[in-house]
């Protein structure tokens, strides 16, 4: 058997590479690349080759995750292929290089497959002239209302006009007028005059979200994006069309007119609304969150996120946030409260303390609680919450860090089975101290912020026996939370915590992806990041130290938790690392 045959049988052959030239520079590119929708290998296109060559080709309708339609004509390039003689054999120049036959017609780089020896020209006078022509066409009927347009600052029409357009307009006719401020659906507003008809929104909602809700009506220059009459554009992914829209045609009702995008501070974060852990960018200004947008991570959410998650930020800025440390209802200080609590815990008999943590807490916080648990011989658990899932992103698990709670040993694989034990322990007077983090343990069902009247996103919390009457039997109820609720009102010690946007940390998503998020805004009042004060508490109760920074804490935890072995804060990168769960 030959060696070639051996290697062939060993593994699938790697994708064949072919050589092309982009603006005179030779590069090697895979012959095929996966189709964005089916995932099947399809011929690599010119625009993909140019991207590999790091040569930007301006485009509007093309999007790497959507089907190609080739309608905007912005990505037109010139090209040539190796010339063939009458004998169908390649022809060479006197210097031995292959003679290139330049195509008399340009090609859209988004849809034209590459071929061996192809030369792509992206910056010839002809290409520049075509881009100028397309931009002129797009601008003649565009309202040019950048000063009041929400897209200004992140508008591809602005950017390409500066980079590739002409400075003066020749247009002296009357502009086409189209509908403005069209209520497309509960979260989306359309300005049809700004629309450049790239159809990204149509393709996204049809091919990605699976809701064939948008289309084009009328003809020619009067073309207008529209819904079916009487059928609002309303699925859980509509706001992605605002991200996809290269201009200010589709705007988010939540964000429009709120803030100039160039004033926004952008912070890499995660969505906490379910176990998927979509990567996000928090846009904030002066300690106020203005919007969430998805951050591309092909291992998790691609470039998308759901509307419910995207709009689930308003609670962070609520006026009734817990801002004070309270000891038996009286305002106190962190030092005083933590000293008192640690004294209590140090003296607590083994088995007299129980911990109910939240799977909305970070891996680091849960791990710190597990250190307390070990020292105190405490029973611990967490509260599962579940709801509807969908085919695209939304997980049935409504906690962002269920796996973190499991891997740090706060709960068993089946979350919540210890709650009965805790309830019994309190009832029998065995458990005297209860530590509760981030959970209103008296409540059973939570209704999230309403997306729309007929589809309230609700989370169901499993039935357990802990009631207000039981809590009254405790010697000490130590509660940390972010917003006030029945449990925080009963607390003997109330420690105000932080939303994820106000701290750093990591979550482990439903698939075991360990991902980090950064701090976007300051917490209100005396509220402190849980990992910070838990570190103090753990030090005071157990004497363990050495993780006063997030980096140090994460690395110490990674060394301690088997599933996280080998991880380091720095190596997580922006998109995380998947661990065995």
């Amino acid at each position, binding site marked *: 058997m030959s060696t070639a045959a051996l290697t062939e049988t060993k593994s699938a052959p790697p994708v064949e590479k072919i050589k092309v030239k982009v603006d005179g520079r030779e590069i090697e590119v895979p012959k095929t690349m996966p189709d964005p929708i089916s995932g099947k290998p399809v011929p690599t296109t010119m625009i993909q080759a140019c991207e590999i060559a790091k040569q930007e080709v301006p485009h509007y309708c093309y999007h790497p995750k959507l089907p*190609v*339609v*080739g*309608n*905007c*004509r*912005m990505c*037109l390039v010139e090209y040539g292929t190796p010339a063939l003689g009458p004998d169908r054999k390649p022809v060479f120049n006197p210097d031995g290089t292959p003679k290139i036959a330049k195509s008399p*017609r*340009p*090609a*859209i780089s988004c*849809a*034209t*497959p590459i071929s061996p020896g192809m030369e792509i020209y992206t910056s010839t006078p002809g290409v520049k002239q*075509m881009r100028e*022509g*397309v931009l*002129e*066409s*797009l601008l*003649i*009927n565009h309202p040019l209302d950048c000063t009041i347009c929400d897209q200004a600052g992140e508008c591809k029409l602005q950017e390409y006009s500066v980079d590739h357009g002409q400075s003066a307009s*020749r*247009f*002296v*006719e*009357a502009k*086409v007028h189209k509908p403005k401020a069209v209520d497309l659906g509960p979260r989306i507003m359309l300005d049809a005059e700004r629309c*450049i*008809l790239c159809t990204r929104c149509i393709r996204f909602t049809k091919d990605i979200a699976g809701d064939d809700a948008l*289309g*084009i009506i*009328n*003809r*020619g*220059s*009067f*073309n207008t994006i529209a819904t079916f009459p009487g059928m609002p554009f309303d699925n859980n992914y509509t706001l992605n069309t605002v991200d996809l829209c290269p201009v200010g045609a589709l705007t988010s009702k939540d964000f429009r007119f709120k803030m100039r995008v160039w004033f926004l501070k952008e912070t890499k974060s995660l969505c906490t609304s379910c176990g998927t852990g979509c990567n996000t960018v928090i846009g904030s200004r002066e300690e106020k969150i203005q919007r969430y947008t998805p951050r591309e991570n092909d291992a998790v959410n691609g470039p998308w996120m759901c509307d419910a998650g995207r709009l689930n930020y308003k609670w962070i800025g609520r006026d009734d946030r817990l801002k004070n440390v309270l000891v038996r209802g009286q305002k106190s200080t962190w030092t005083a409260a933590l000293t008192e609590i640690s004294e209590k815990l140090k003296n607590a008999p083994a088995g007299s303390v129980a911990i109910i943590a939240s799977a909305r807490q970070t891996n680091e916080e849960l791990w710190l609680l597990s250190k307390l648990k070990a020292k105190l011989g405490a029973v611990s658990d967490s509260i599962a919450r579940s709801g509807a899932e969908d085919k695209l992103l939304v997980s049935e698990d409504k906690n962002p860090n269920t796996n973190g709670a499991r891997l740090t040993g706060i709960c068993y694989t089946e979350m919540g089975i210890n709650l009965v034990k805790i309830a019994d322990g309190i009832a029998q007077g065995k458990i005297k101290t209860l530590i509760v983090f981030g959970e209103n343990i008296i409540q059973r069902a939570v209704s999230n912020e309403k997306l729309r009247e007929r589809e309230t996103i609700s989370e169901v919390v499993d039935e357990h026996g802990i009631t207000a009457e039981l809590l009254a039997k405790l010697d000490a109820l130590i509660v940390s939370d972010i917003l006030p609720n029945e449990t925080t009102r009963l607390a003997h010690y109330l420690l105000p915590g932080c939303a994820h946007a106000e701290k750093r940390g990591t979550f482990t998503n439903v698939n075991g992806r360990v991902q980090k998020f950064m701090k976007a805004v300051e917490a209100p009042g005396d509220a402190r990041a849980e990992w910070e004060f838990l570190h103090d508490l753990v030090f005071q109760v157990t004497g363990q130290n050495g993780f006063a920074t997030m980096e140090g804490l994460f690395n110490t935890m990674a060394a301690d938790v088997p599933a996280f072995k080998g991880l380091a804060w720095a190596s997580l990168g922006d998109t995380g690392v998947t661990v065995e769960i």
Partner: protein
Amino acid sequence: MAQEYKLILKHADAPGYTPDIECYLRHGGYATLRKALALTPKNLADGKTLSAPEQIREEVKVSGLRGRGGAGFSCGLKWSFVDRKSGKPIYLICNADESEPGTFKDRQIMHKDPHQLVEGMILSCFANDVHLAYIYIRGEMVEGAKILNQALKEARAKGFLGKNISGSGYDLEMHVHRGAGAYICGEETGLIESLEGKRPYPRIKPPYFPAVLGLWMCPTIVNNVETLCNVKHIVEMGGAAFAQLGTPNNTGTRIVSLSGHVQRPGYYEIEIGKATIGELIHDPKFGGGLRPGRTLKAVIPGGSSAKVFKAGEKFKLKKKDAEGKEILVETDMLDLPYDFDSLAAAGSMSGSSAIIVMDDSTDIVEALANISEFYAHESCGQCTPCREGSLWMSKTLHRLTHGEGRAGDADYLVKIADNIPGGRTICAFGEACSWPVQSFVAKFKDEFVAKGAADEARRAQQAAAPAGQKPLAAAHH
């Protein structure tokens, strides 16, 4: 002298000829189909065997038949592109969306001799292993659709459609589908999208070549009505005999739609290249000349999207001299043979073979404004340059024909037009809307400039007039 040559229209206008199947059968109809279905495999000298369908495809190739819809692409070549190994069904669509302004040839066939089309289609389907075919007819042709549906019903009743056609074991079903009234549905991939129930946005090529990824992503043949009728005659008389008609590389006959300022507008079937534009306009057998006292100004030779010819325009055409050497011969526009290649060599096209004649009474700017308005209305709006450019040109021409022109509008129009064609759009509509503008302005620039300059002068005069005497400003905003 040029003569009419009635091949397709042999019976259509004969007295007493009716569109029903009995009449068609009386005139020898469906005999060719029966003959074709009975063909036996043919052994070739090189040991290969040609099946009956392959024999028909070969005849069509030999015939040199070129598409009669507009592009003049070789029919045999088009059929040879069909992906026959995909395992998917192959579809055939008859493009009966005749929409090019000036063109009214296909409707003669459909209205008067529908079974000729049906027979041509069945033969074409048989030749290409097609078992389901569609006739996509222009929405406005309500009567045509009725006649064709009746014809299909009759053909089905006689066993020419359906299962086991004439006992041959070959099955074929055929449907008439009416468009909803859009010019772009005549573009083959736009037509396919429309037939699939979608907006008729032409598809990008690559990858959606109809021969590979056509209707329902299956291999598909789209042929014009007249082209499909020709297939019947090719099978009947043989490809080689058909190729004797017309001129080399421009074989067969064409039905020319002649309209505008001639004495006898109408449709005339000629052998391709055997009559000149001048003969078609002036010969008493054809157009019969201009109206009395008029002189020729311009001719659009191939439907309104073709580039215009100016009267007196001369072209250098390649010809072979007595010794067979290639020489350039100066040819007057009127002496151009009416065929695919000569008109292309003269910078225009025979397109859908519709000749529009304009005499000296024509306001050329108005004529272009009319054409431009049509294309602005019919642009599907998919590609940016055509969507925005077609309306821009139309608005400019509207302004220029309503007293609001500028002397610079001529150059302005050409600059707009230059940004649209030449591969900048998905389909050839970009060319269709910009070629008239480019050619009209290039060939009649003085008229465009004069009109704009006159408007400018009038406006200057009005601005200079004392306040009290100021005439009302033109109300064309």
